[in-house]
């Protein structure tokens, strides 16, 4: 177990390093929600998801839906590290002619299960995938990562009712609860609490965990597998921009790229230099 923790923490650090490098190079993108979700993404892509990068369309695969599409840098990093496309391509984020769109485009890049960008839709898309899996008798599980601010979208609650009504126990939702949205703290802009009670009252099996404790994430994903007859929602308490001290818990870094000295400092904190080949320091 200790080895698994170490392994997943290292993978999460790698995802954070990629995220900062990509966004730093592009000087555009959303670091906040990518960094807060890095541990969740590491557990999904390097431990939990039953996927095969050599067969991205394999019908029995698990699905991962990134409903908060703006956090795609961490998804791109996870896909590249999983072997869906070359790691070098990460530095083409948001460039003209590149495949790494500002928000994910399933028609451009292998491994993207659904295009996203407009909040509130992913859970409903996941429900559709779950219905299809049920109709086809497939054991695939559908994981969907949402934002906390995203829970302000009405469609989330339409989908919540639908998932419970259809007893979609093959759907696992994860809310990256960093309590920040673009305009400020979620609790100041439009409070979503009591969140656990909301999901429970909508008929979902609901858990609250520390979203930066990789083993807690592993255990939560394992635990919800035994829940039958209703979908599961894991509320993961996180810190926006987790891993870069001066960016942590600041709304301004929701969608702002660190530049100049800030970028250098962020790279330093994440020891980015260690992961870069000597002849490829352009991204620094």
């Amino acid at each position: 177990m200790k080895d698994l923790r170490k392994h997943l923490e290292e993978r999460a650090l790698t995802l954070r390093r990629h995220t900062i490098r990509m966004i730093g190079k592009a000087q555009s993108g959303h670091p906040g929600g990518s960094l807060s979700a890095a541990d969740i993404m590491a557990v999904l892509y390097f431990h939990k998801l039953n996927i095969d990068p050599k067969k991205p369309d394999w019908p029995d695969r698990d699905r991962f839906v990134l409903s908060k599409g703006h956090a795609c840098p961490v998804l791109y990093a996870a896909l590249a590290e999983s072997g869906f496309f070359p790691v070098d391509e990460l530095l083409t984020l948001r460039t003209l002619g590149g495949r790494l769109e500002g928000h994910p485009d399933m028609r451009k890049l292998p491994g993207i299960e659904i295009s996203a960008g407009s909040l509130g839709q992913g859970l409903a898309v996941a429900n559709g995938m779950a219905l299809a899996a049920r109709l086809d008798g497939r054991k695939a599980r559908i994981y969907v990562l949402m934002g906390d601010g995203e829970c302000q979208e009405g469609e989330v609650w339409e989908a919540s009712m639908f998932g419970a009504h259809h007893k979609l126990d093959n759907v696992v939702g994860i809310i990256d609860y960093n309590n920040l949205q673009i305009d400020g703290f979620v609790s100041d802009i439009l409070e979503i609490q009591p969140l656990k009670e909301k999901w429970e009252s909508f008929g979902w099996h609901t858990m609250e965990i520390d979203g930066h404790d990789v083993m807690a994430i592993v255990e939560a994903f394992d635990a919800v597998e035994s829940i039958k007859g209703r979908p599961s929602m894991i509320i993961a308490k996180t810190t926006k921009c987790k891993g870069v001290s001066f960016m942590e818990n600041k709304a301004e870094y929701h969608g702002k790229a660190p530049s100049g000295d800030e970028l250098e400092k962020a790279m330093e904190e994440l020891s980015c230099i260690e992961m870069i080949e000597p002849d490829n320091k352009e991204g620094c």
Partner: protein
Amino acid sequence: MKATRQAVAPTLIEMGKENPNIVALDADLAESTGLNKFGKEFPDRFFDCGVAEQNMMSTAAGLAVSGKTPFVGSFTVFTIGRAWDQLRNVVAYADLNVKICSTHSGVSVGEDGSSHQPIEDIAMLRALPNMKIIVPADFYEAREALKASVEIPGPVFIRLGRPKMPQVYDDDYSFKFGKADVLKAGKDLSIIATGLMVRMALDAADMLQQDGIDAEVINMSTIKPLDEATLIESARKTGRVLTVEEHSIVGGLGGAVSETLSEKLPTPVTRIGVKDRFGTSGPYQEVLKYFGLTPENIVKTAKEALL
């Protein structure tokens, strides 16, 4: 007399028997769209989503991306209006195989009034990349368009109407997606019509004939992609075009025809439709008349255009 929406239930049930990947979703209007009958036949493959159209559209996207062919049904004000972002940012953007069998289109919705009378849907959908738009002229064309839609990759919008109307075609009609149908050849004027206005355009052409005006009548049931070749050929022959639609004159068939001809064969165009205003309550025959959507007004407008 049959309504285009009446084609939904029998056609989908027939297709559903042969194609297990066809599924259907509705948003609490399944009796009106006819999808409740599909649900009775295939209870596992029908999902009434309740009064939640946005969720319905995104759920359809999830089904489509998993290899299903979902038919999404509701009234057009809701399929397009309420679920626009879902249609734009997932279904159309990702070019997903979602078929929208959208009923209660245009002002012929009648009594329910303006809130339920979409007159802007074609304009909105024309501007959406990857979207295909079919406006069947009658029950038979609706039936064939629904069948054809399964073979057309990506999203297809099929604009269906509420009222029972006289037919244009018969049981043997063969629909060709993307191909306009020249119903009557003529040399003086091209009447390009769509949806329930096609029958009226034919009736108007008969009346014009009695007055010595030889009008060509074209059913432009596929609005996107537009059959530009047939349009241009007709405009070249007659030199005068009249468009007729149960939709706003802004951005619909009239807009599509004007844009095409302006660039490729500048020709005077007159548009009959709803003139940039909302609809109104009333029995559908009276509402259609109120908006000038009658054979008589087509005749009058054609004569004015030819002065």
